[in-house]
C-alpha cells in the first residue's frame, strides 16, 4: 500500500506543473508512449460533474496523470442523473475499457448491478464498498483530515467561533462535520461551532450567502463541505477583510483565493486513481476494500503556502503532532455525530 502511494506522489509531483489539473471532457488520447497496447481507463462522474473543482475534478486529474505517466487511453463520461450511472458504466465496459472508476457513493447500487455482467472488466468505486470480485472499493477517512482542519481552525480562530457548512445532509458529509468538530474541541475548548447545510451542491450563490451569515454570526473560519456551494463560500471570504477564512475540501482549493483559503482538507482521489491505474497497467488489480486515511496518505491537509504566515506560532507543529497520533493509531477520530458525542478531546501539551 505504501508502495502505491509513493508512486502516486512522485507522479503527482511530475505532473503538477504540466497538467495543471485541467483536462478535456472526453479525452480519448492515443497512446503517447508507443508501447504495444495501452491500458484503457475510464471514469463515470457523479451528478456533480466535472468542473466542481473538487471531487470529480480530482478523480479526473488522477486519470489525466495516468494518461501522461502511463500512456493510458482515458475516457470520462458525465452523469446527469442517477439513472445515468448504470448505462454510463455499461457503455464504458462495452467499449472495452480495462479499469472503470465509479466516482461517488451514489453509484454503489448501479455498480453492484453492472459489475457481474462484465466479469472481465475491472471496476473501482470511490467512497463506497461494493462486494464484487471485480470491484475494488476505495474509501477515505475524511474525518481524519477534517480533524486536522479542525485543529488548524481551533488554533487560528480569533473569535473562538468556527463554522461548518455542509451541502446536502448525508453520512458522508457527517464524517467531515464530526472530524472537524473533534479537532476544534481538542485544541480549543473555548471555541463554539456553528453548523449549517445549504441543501444543495449546485447553488453557488446560496453557498456564498450561507457563508456570509456564518461570518456575521461570529465565525471567522468556515469549513465548507458543500460541492460547488464551496466556491461561493470562498468568494465570500474574498470579499471580507483579513481574518476571515474558508477551509476547502477534496481538492487543493488554496489557490482559488490565495490567503483566504486557510487550508484544504485533501482527499487524494487523484492519487488513488493513479495508483490503481498503475497497478492495473501491470494487470495487478488489488481486490476488496482499500481504506485510505492519513496513514496511507489518502487524506491530508495542503501545505498552506499562502496562509502559513497567518497561523499562530506552533500551530503547524501541533497539527503535525496530532497527525502522528492518528497515524500511530493512538487517536481514533469520530466519523459520526454519535461517535462525536462520546469523543473525549485529546489535549496535547502544546495546545493554547
Amino acid at each position, binding site marked *: 500500500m505504501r508502495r502505491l502511494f509513493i508512486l502516486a506522489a512522485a507522479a503527482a509531483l511530475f505532473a503538477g506543473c504540466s497538467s495543471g489539473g485541467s483536462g478535456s*471532457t472526453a479525452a480519448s488520447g492515443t497512446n503517447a508512449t508507443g508501447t504495444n497496447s495501452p491500458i484503457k481507463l475510464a471514469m463515470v462522474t457523479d451528478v*456533480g460533474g466535472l*468542473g466542481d473543482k473538487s471531487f470529480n475534478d480530482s478523480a479526473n486529474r488522477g486519470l489525466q496523470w495516468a494518461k501522461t505517466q502511463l500512456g493510458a487511453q482515458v475516457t470520462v463520461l458525465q452523469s446527469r442523473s442517477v439513472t445515468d450511472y448504470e448505462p454510463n458504466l455499461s457503455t464504458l465496459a462495452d467499449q472495452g475499457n480495462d479499469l472503470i472508476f465509479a466516482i461517488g457513493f451514489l453509484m454503489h447500487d448501479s455498480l453492484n448491478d453492472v459489475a457481474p455482467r462484465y466479469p472481465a472488466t475491472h471496476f473501482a468505486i470511490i467512497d463506497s464498498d461494493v462486494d464484487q470480485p471485480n470491484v475494488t472499493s476505495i474509501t477515505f477517512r475524511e474525518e481524519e483530515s477534517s480533524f486536522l482542519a479542525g485543529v488548524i481552525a481551533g488554533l487560528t480562530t480569533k473569535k473562538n467561533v468556527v463554522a461548518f457548512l455542509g451541502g446536502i445532509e448525508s453520512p458522508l458529509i457527517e464524517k467531515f462535520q464530526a472530524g472537524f468538530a473533534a479537532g476544534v474541541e481538542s485544541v480549543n475548548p473555548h471555541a463554539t461551532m456553528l453548523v449549517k447545510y445549504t441543501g444543495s451542491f449546485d*447553488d453557488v450563490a446560496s453557498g456564498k*450567502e450561507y457563508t456570509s451569515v456564518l461570518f*456575521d454570526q461570529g465565525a471567522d473560519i468556515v469549513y465548507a463541505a458543500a460541492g460547488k456551494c464551496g466556491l461561493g463560500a470562498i468568494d465570500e471570504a474574498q470579499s471580507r477583510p483579513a481574518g476571515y477564512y474558508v477551509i476547502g475540501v477534496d481538492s487543493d482549493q488554496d489557490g482559488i483565493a490565495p490567503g483566504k483559503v486557510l487550508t484544504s482538507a485533501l482527499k487524494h482521489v487523484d492519487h488513488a486513481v493513479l495508483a490503481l491505474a498503475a497497478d492495473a497497467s501491470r494487470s495487478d488489480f488489488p481486490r476488496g476494500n482499500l481504506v485510505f486515511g492519513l496513514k496511507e496518505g489518502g487524506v491530508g491537509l495542503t501545505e498552506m503556502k499562502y496562509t502559513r504566515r497567518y497561523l499562530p506560532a506552533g500551530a503547524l507543529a501541533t497539527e503535525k503532532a496530532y497527525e502522528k497520533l492518528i497515524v500511530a493509531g493512538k487517536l481514533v477520530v469520530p466519523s459520526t455525530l454519535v461517535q462525536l458525542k462520546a469523543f473525549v478531546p485529546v489535549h496535547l501539551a502544546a495546545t493554547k
Partner: protein
Amino acid sequence: MSTPWLIALAVAKVLPKKATPLIFAALGGVISENGGIVNIALEGIMAGGAFAAVVTSYRTHDVVLAIFVAVLTGMALAAVLAYFALAQSADQIVVGMAINILTLGMTAYLVSTVFGQPGASPEVPGLRNEAVLTWVALALVVVVHVILYRTRIGIHLRAVGEEPRAAATAGINVVAYRYAATIAGGALAALGGAYLSVGETHIYSDGMVAGRGFIALAAVIFGKWTPFGAAGACAFFALFSSLQIVLQGGAVPAQFLEMLPYLLTIVAIAGFIGRARPPASDGVPYER
C-alpha cells in the same frame, strides 16, 4: 448571538442578495405579461444572462461590458420568444418551455467548449460591490411602476395586454409594443442572471440559477402583475429563504421553507387569498 435583533440584522443583510435577482427577473415578467406575453422562459433567460456575463468578463475583464452583453443576450432570447409568439402565433407557454430547455442545454454546452471544462467557469472579474445592482433593482421597481402607470408608453402597453384590438383601433402598434415589452423583460431577467454570476459569485456554474426564474414567475402572479406587488413578493420569498439561512436547524425542515413560494403561489392563483387576475389578454395570441 440569537437575540431577535441580531437575527433581524443577519436577515437584513442576506435578504437583498436573495431578493435582487428575483426582483430583476420578476420585473421582466411584469413588463412582458402586462404587454400580453406570458414569459415562462425567465429561468432560461437568467441562465443565458449569467453565462454571457461570465464569458464576457473572462475574455475582456470588463465587468460593465459583461453586464451589457448579458442584457443583450437576454434581449436576444426574449426576441426569440416574441418572434414565435407574435410572428408565428405559437403557444407562448410552449415557446417559453422550449427556450428554457434550449438555453440550459446551450449554456452547459458552451461552458464545456469555451472554458474547456464542463460544469463551471473559472473565477472571473466581477463587480466589487454587487449592492449597486440591488439599488438598480429597487430603482427599476419605481421606474417600471411610473412607466406603467404614469406614462403614455405604460398606458399603451397595458392597453395592449388588456384588449389589443382596442389598443390597435386607438392607433397603438400592438405588435411593436409586444415585441418591445418582451425584449425589455428579457433584458431585466438577464440582469438578474448577471447579478448571480458577475455580481454575486464571479463564476458561472451549471444549475446556478436553481429555480429562481420560476420563483420570479411565482412572484409576478403573487404580486398581481404589478411592479410593487411583484417586488414585494420577491422580498417576501427572499425573507423566508434568508430566515432559513439564519435560523437553520429549527423545527421546520429546510425543504418546507423552500416550498413556501410555490405553495403560496398555488394558493394565490386558486383565489384563496384574493383573486390573482392576469391582464385580460395575457397569453392570448393577437391577430389582426
